[in-house]
Every structure is written in structure tokens, then in C-alpha cells.
């Protein structure tokens, strides 16, 4: 059974640059439809299950918007 | 006269300079002046002139020194902190008796401040912010058209008196668009070959030397007095100002320049509609300051208000003009705040009643 991980993207910080989406080897991330208060489409995790907690999204994110937790 | 063109002040003054024959421009980027350097970057090469982004404001003003020493029509531009860095160079250019044009698109200060329009470099501009005994003519535009027109004017004054000339604009004048018309022709450049570098002819006895070092105080004193004789000539010929609503005796005289004066005009108009007579004297040359014109305009008024976008600098010149002959007050905003016409109307109304 896969280790459980949780990834959270803080919409307050996210600017929808997409660098995390590019970084994710699992394709777990995608833009949300809505705009956040800054006028950007924030990123959401569309597949928490697939996420391995590898942290590459965190590494890529210029706005330190991502938190990754593991069990 | 050409067509009206809607242009930013920063671009209009650059275009006017090129049309007036400026073919050398050296500067360093800074907000809110950057459209000026960018316009020059695009257009100067097309005009066959030299555009160079210097490595700093210090380098830029010294490149200007070099081009001016060769008798070129040369310009630089910057904004407040960058203008501070140019002070040593400006003092040299003044001392070397070289014509050059320096545009200051002022921003908020002191320090890094901000990029909002301000008039807080008044003292620096009008009292020779660099070291030593010198002044520079200072032209203060109040619209994009006037800003543009001051480029050729600045070159003419610079060449007539062999002095650097400062155009004293601000972020608002630089950034805003207004209709501009460029004249069809410009005064030709004064021939610099009697003193400029690179003009030595084969077999000529004398080389040209540009220098500001005069080790013997008596000689430097003499040179300074010659410089100040030119300043007297400038005071005689070049003082410029606008009188607005001054034909009938006003109860209040406002002295204000540049961007601030525009807002004052709106207030003066509004008060006129209320039946309150307020006149405006707008200095266009800040140095030499129109002392006499201010004193004359103040005759019979209740109070003279100086309205500035700073904590009170030109108001000293106003007091020097009046020499106690009239009560004065200062109305200012700092930090890059600009009066709204409504605010100013209310303030002036307060003094009028």
C-alpha cells in the first residue's frame, strides 16, 4: 500500500505560473477553473493518491505556496 | 506646424530634442523617466545620432561632459536619486562652461522614496546641488506641450550662455499623454568651433583645452566672476513666467509651478466661478527665479500662497521676492501626493475669506 501523502497549495500565494505542474512526475497537479483574488488560476492537486511526496513541485514553486505532508 | 499627436511627456521631450538637433544622448534607466531613454533608444539611431545606455548615472553625466566638450547637442535624463549622483558632473560641466541639457523627471524622496510625481528637488536644481559657486538655468514645464517645447529652448539657452540647463519635470508630466504639436523648424546650433575639442587644424598654434582646475585662487575667483557675469545676462534675458487671472486685482496670489500649478489653475477657475478672485503666477524659469514678477503680482493682495509638491522649497524664493512686503503662507504635500482641484480650491478659499 502506498505511503499516504498530502499536498496543499495555498491559494493566497499561488500565482498560477504552472511551474509545479511541469515539475510533477505524476501529473497530479492542474490549474483550477476559478480565479483567485490576485486574478490567477491557482493550482490544485487533482490526484492526491498518485502523489509520491517527492517534493519536486515544492522545489519548483517560486511562491512557496506548497506544503507536503507524509504519514 | 505639424499635427497634434497624443504623446507621453517623456516621449514628447525626447522627440522634440531630436527634432531640435540633439544627436547625443547618454542615460541610465530609472522610473518614472524610462520612456525617455527607451524612446531615445528607438529613435536616435534612426536619426543617425548616438544613443548609449551608460553603466550608471555617474558615467552618463561624464559621457555628456565628453560630448559637450566636442560641441555636440547632448542630453541626459534621470530621476531624483540619479540626478543626485550626477551632481559632481554637473558642477564640472558648469565650471567648464559647456552647454548640455539635463532632464529630471522627479519622483518622491528623500532616499529611494517612490515613483510618484514630486517637486522636492527644487533646492538641488536651483541652488547648484553640486559643490562650488554655480547655478544652472532651470525650466519647469506644466504640460506635455511645454515639456516638449523646453527641449529646443534648453539647448538654445545652454549654447547662448555655455551652461548646463535643467528641465525640471516630474513623474506625472513624464507619464501622462497630452496632445503635442511640434514646430516645423528649430533654431540652429551656435557654432562651437572656437572652443570645442577636436577642432584643431593642422599648423594651428593653439590647442583647445577644457578645464575647471584653477590652482591659483585669484584665477579661480576671476573665472567665477566671469561665470557670474553670464548669470547676470541670463537673469536679464531669460526669466520666464506665466500670469494667470492676474489682470484684475486678486485678493490672493498663488505662486506655483509645474504639475502643482496645473491643479492651481483648476482651483483658480473654480474660485472665479464663486466670485473669489485668485491670481496665479507660475514661474517657468525656477532659476533665475522671477523675483520681480512675483513682487509686482503681489501688490495689493491679502496674502501670497506658495503651492508646491514638497515641504516648502520655492516658498523661500517667494519670501526673498517679497522681502516682507506681503504676508505669505505655504501649502504643500509631500511623498508624491498630488493635490486634487477640490482640495486646493477649499484651501485657497480658506485663505481668501
Amino acid at each position: 500500500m502506498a505511503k499516504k501523502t498530502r499536498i496543499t497549495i495555498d491559494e493566497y500565494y499561488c500565482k498560477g505560473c504552472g511551474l509545479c505542474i511541469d515539475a510533477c512526475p505524476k501529473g497530479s497537479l492542474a490549474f483550477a477553473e476559478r480565479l483567485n483574488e490576485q486574478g490567477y488560476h491557482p493550482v490544485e492537486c487533482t490526484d492526491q493518491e498518485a502523489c509520491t511526496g517527492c517534493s519536486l513541485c515544492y522545489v519548483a514553486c517560486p511562491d512557496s505556496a506548497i506544503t507536503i505532508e507524509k504519514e | 506646424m505639424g499635427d497634434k499627436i497624443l504623446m507621453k511627456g517623456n516621449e514628447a521631450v525626447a522627440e522634440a530634442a531630436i527634432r531640435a538637433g540633439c544627436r547625443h544622448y547618454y542615460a541610465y534607466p530609472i522610473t518614472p523617466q524610462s520612456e525617455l531613454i527607451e524612446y531615445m533608444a528607438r529613435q536616435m539611431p534612426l536619426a543617425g545620432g548616438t544613443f548609449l545606455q551608460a553603466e550608471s548615472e555617474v558615467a552618463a553625466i561624464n559621457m555628456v561632459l565628453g560630448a559637450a566638450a566636442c560641441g555636440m547637442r547632448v542630453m541626459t535624463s534621470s530621476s531624483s536619486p540619479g540626478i543626485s549622483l550626477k551632481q559632481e558632473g554637473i558642477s564640472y560641466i558648469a565650471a567648464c562652461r559647456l552647454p548640455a541639457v539635463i532632464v529630471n523627471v522627479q519622483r518622491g524622496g528623500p532616499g529611494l522614496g517612490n515613483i510618484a510625481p514630486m517637486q522636492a528637488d527644487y533646492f538641488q536644481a536651483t541652488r547648484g546641488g553640486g559643490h562650488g559657486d554655480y547655478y544652472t538655468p532651470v525650466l519647469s514645464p506644466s504640460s506635455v506641450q511645454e515639456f516638449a517645447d523646453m527641449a529646443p529652448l534648453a539647448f538654445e539657452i545652454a549654447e547662448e550662455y555655455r551652461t548646463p540647463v535643467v528641465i525640471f519635470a516630474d513623474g506625472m508630466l513624464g507619464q501622462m499623454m497630452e496632445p503635442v504639436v511640434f514646430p516645423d523648424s528649430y533654431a540652429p546650433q551656435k557654432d562651437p568651433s572656437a572652443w570645442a575639442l577636436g577642432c584643431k587644424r593642422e599648423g594651428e598654434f593653439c590647442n583647445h583645452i577644457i578645464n575647471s582646475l584653477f590652482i591659483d585662487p585669484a584665477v579661480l575667483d576671476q573665472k567665477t566672476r566671469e561665470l557670474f557675469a553670464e548669470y547676470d545676462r541670463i537673469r536679464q534675458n531669460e526669466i520666464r513666467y506665466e500670469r494667470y487671472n492676474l489682470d484684475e486685482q486678486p485678493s490672493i496670489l498663488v505662486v506655483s509651478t509645474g504639475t502643482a500649478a496645473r491643479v492651481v489653475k483648476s482651483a483658480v477657475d473654480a474660485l472665479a466661478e464663486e466670485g473669489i478672485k485668485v491670481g496665479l503666477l507660475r514661474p517657468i524659469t525656477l532659476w533665475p527665479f522671477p523675483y520681480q514678477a512675483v513682487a509686482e503680482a503681489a501688490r495689493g493682495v491679502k496674502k501670497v500662497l506658495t503651492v508646491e509638491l514638497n515641504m516648502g522649497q520655492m516658498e523661500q524664493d517667494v519670501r526673498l521676492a517679497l522681502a516682507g512686503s506681503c504676508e505669505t503662507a505655504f501649502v504643500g504635500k509631500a511623498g508624491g501626493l498630488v493635490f486634487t482641484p477640490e482640495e486646493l480650491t477649499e484651501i485657497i478659499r480658506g485663505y481668501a475669506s
Partner: protein
Amino acid sequence: MRIVAKRTRGLTSARLTYCPGCLHGVAHRLIGESMEELGIIERAIGIAPVGCAVFAYNFFSCDMIQVPHGRAPAVATGLRRSRPDCVVFTYQGDGDLAAIGMAETVHAANRNENITVFFINNAVYGMTGGQMAPTTLAGMKATTAPYGRDVEDTGGPTRMCELLATLEMPWFITRVSLLSPKDILKAKKAVKKAFKNNLDKKGFQFVEMISTCPTNWGMDPLRAREWAKQEMLPVFPPGVYKDRGAEQEDAS
């Protein structure tokens, strides 16, 4: 659940003012993380330049000072000589460090001042709207090089690591890339090493980071990164240009 990665305490909670996808943010994070990991947030003093990073005084959680354009190394000199117990760093753009600040940079390096210089090279003046920088590539367009940079007229892209490495005194000079997660992980090591060297009073540390300016390059963040990989890295090759620590080890 245990947190494995989260916003570092080395950064404040303020939202960064950089454009979406601008790698200034990555550089910030690496510095913040390194300060946190080395436990120096309380004894670090950072210098915000004039440039897009001018607001960095709001972003790093250590003591901060905002200084005149290009003069960060001089201010850092005053700081570190006043507070030798503190770790002093500057954060500077290419315009700031390599144009107006060239003299201050070279001389602080030559004095081997015990400071860390983070140099964010994005080949452009970001803050003021895309003017040519000393590091702008040959032929690259900028608002003040509208026809592309003509190196015959305005010079070639300034390579600061190469230039500074000719000096005898500076301790550690390196160039890293922020253009992929892998590069970023490497960059992190350089940042941390630079701080560590300052803690050990080794002297001048210079970490150039190849970055992007999506806004002024007119590219989206991903394309900007790709472009930089292709165009900038060959001109500004990552690597260690001087490491007196390693030299000493070699010699021993």
C-alpha cells in the same frame, strides 16, 4: 502526518511581489531555507537592492536594509565590519551588481569582505521595465536595445564569475542555475555553503543564479525557463569559479 516541505520560516508570510513564475521567488526560498537550516535567521542581516527585489526587506524574516542602487556590497562592508557576529548577505540583480555597482562589487570581492552576495542574473532590468542589462545576450532585444543588443556598440554580456575569479582574495565564486528542480537542488547547496563559509569567517562568497524574467522577455514562465536553458547557460556556464576552501584542501 508530518510535514516534509513547507514555506520556510526564513521567509515572512508576505506574498512575494514578483510576477507569476519569476524565479526570484525560488532564489528567495533557497536563501530562506538555508538561513533556517543553519539557524541564522536571528543573526543574519540581508540587503535589498534596487530592482524587482527591492521589497525583499518584507520577504526575508531576518533583519533587512534597503540600499541605493548598486551599492549593496559597500553597505554590506559597513554592516559586517560593525557586526562581525552577524551573517551579512546582499541580494542583487544584474543591473544593480554589474552595471552601476561594478566598482563596489569588484572591490568588496578584492577585500574578501566576509559577506555573501546572491546575484540574480536575468539578463535584463526587470523592475524598470525591460531595459538592457550588462548581462543581456548578444542580439537579444530589450527596451533600450530595441534592435537587439549590438555587442560591437554596447559590449558583450558581462560574466561576473569569470571576472571576479581573476582576483586573488575572494573565497568562493560559483554560478548556479534555477532553471529546473534538479538545478535548484544544486543551487541550494551552493547557497548553504556560501552562508556556512561566512559563518566560518572565510570571506567573500559569490553565488550567481541564472534566472528568468518572463514578463520582460514576453514569455510564459515555462518558455522563459527553456529559453534561458538554451540561450543563457552556454554564455553563463554554471560551475565553481573559485573555491579557496577546496584549493586549501587540494594543497593539504
